[in-house]
């Protein structure tokens, strides 16, 4: 029995001790960067799937299930776009627009700050509709020209650590 146990332990050891240290931030995450190099995103795939990109814009989604690529019925979608205004102004404009479209929804009075893994300061807000079945989150980071906005739409709460981790993996180019 002991011999079998040792053999089993050796077989298990042969599987591997790991490639990436999970104690490091964003360990095991995939990376996407548009051709311009204006920004980059570290994302865990799955659940995040790259849907498509054009110029400095890109789309990502969390499919309804692990075995699905039906992004049309995604649990969460993320759209990244360039904006011509500063991050503060873009976040405030986004919050005002959302409140106008969802007068009975719940949203903060004003955007708050958030920091990514590169130490860049962003501005964000999270909101939910009156029935708390549709959730919304917008995050903006300043760029050398204007800012980049990350707009999340989802059927699950978006002010969670999982989504915040994705935001932390977003970084704008400084040049």
């Amino acid at each position, binding site marked *: 029995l002991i011999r079998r146990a040792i053999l089993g332990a050796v077989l298990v050891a042969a599987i591997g001790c790991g490639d990436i*240290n999970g104690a490091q931030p964003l360990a*095991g995450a995939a990376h996407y960067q548009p051709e311009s190099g204006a920004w980059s995103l570290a*994302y865990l795939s799955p659940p995040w799937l790259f849907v498509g990109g054009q110029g400095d814009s890109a789309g990502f989604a*969390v*499919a309804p299930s692990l075995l699905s690529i039906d992004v049309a019925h995604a*649990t969460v979608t993320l759209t990244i776009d360039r904006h011509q205004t500063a991050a503060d102004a873009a976040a405030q404009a986004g919050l005002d627009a959302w409140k106008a479209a969802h007068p009975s929804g719940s949203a903060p009075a004003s955007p708050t700050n958030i920091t990514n893994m590169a130490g860049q300061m962003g501005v964000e807000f999270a909101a939910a509709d009156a029935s708390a079945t549709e959730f919304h989150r917008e995050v903006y980071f300043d760029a050398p020209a204007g800012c980049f906005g990350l707009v999340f739409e989802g059927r699950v709460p978006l002010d969670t*650590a999982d989504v915040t*981790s994705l935001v932390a993996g977003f970084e704008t180019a400084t040049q």
Partner: protein
Amino acid sequence: MRRSLVAALMFLALPAAAQKTPDDYGPTPTPDDYGPSPSGQAERSARAASRPTTDQGETPPVVERLERQAPILQLAWRRFAVGRAGDAMPGTDSAMDGIMFEWYPVSSFVRFGLATEYARENSSRADHDWYLAEHLSLGLQRPGPITPFIEGTAGAGYFKRFVVSQVQPTAIWEFGANAGALFHFSGPAFVSVSAGWVHPVWLLVSVDQMSLTQVYRDSFAIKLGLGF
């Protein structure tokens, strides 16, 4: 006077007549019907008298029966951090509480154990990760009222993770080592305390990059158990 004498004789004779066992009570009991005589006490006294004595004339204690002081079954709780792949702060909210049912088919100076563990994430997240794993352990111990031990472990199982509310089935295997002691408090019953190191490894499947990635983590682990 004569009447008084007759009455006194009758008074003395009546109790004897009343204490006589009637015939329908069966045979008169013999000493054997009351079980063996306390001869064991006499034998123990004789053995004690024949024992060697110390220089001070004291009789050294003799252990009548050896109690088993090595584990056979144990129910244990342990806590460690398994981490969270892809997280910006992988150390936050990644503590796992595991319940382990352990069986030691070999348990003398060498101990070999099998353990089934269910562990669940201890965090404030809405969805809690959990895993189910089977472990093997091999170690050394010194049986006694306090049984110190050291052992190495290896295990594998199924890890169910939740990321953005989506289930992420993940393979997990784990190595570890720990040391501690069993404290016997009533015969073979004991409580155990141990601490050590665990090295869980996850197998991540990257859909976008079509690759397999092994993510590992090193963590301190503490375990408390109750068994016999």
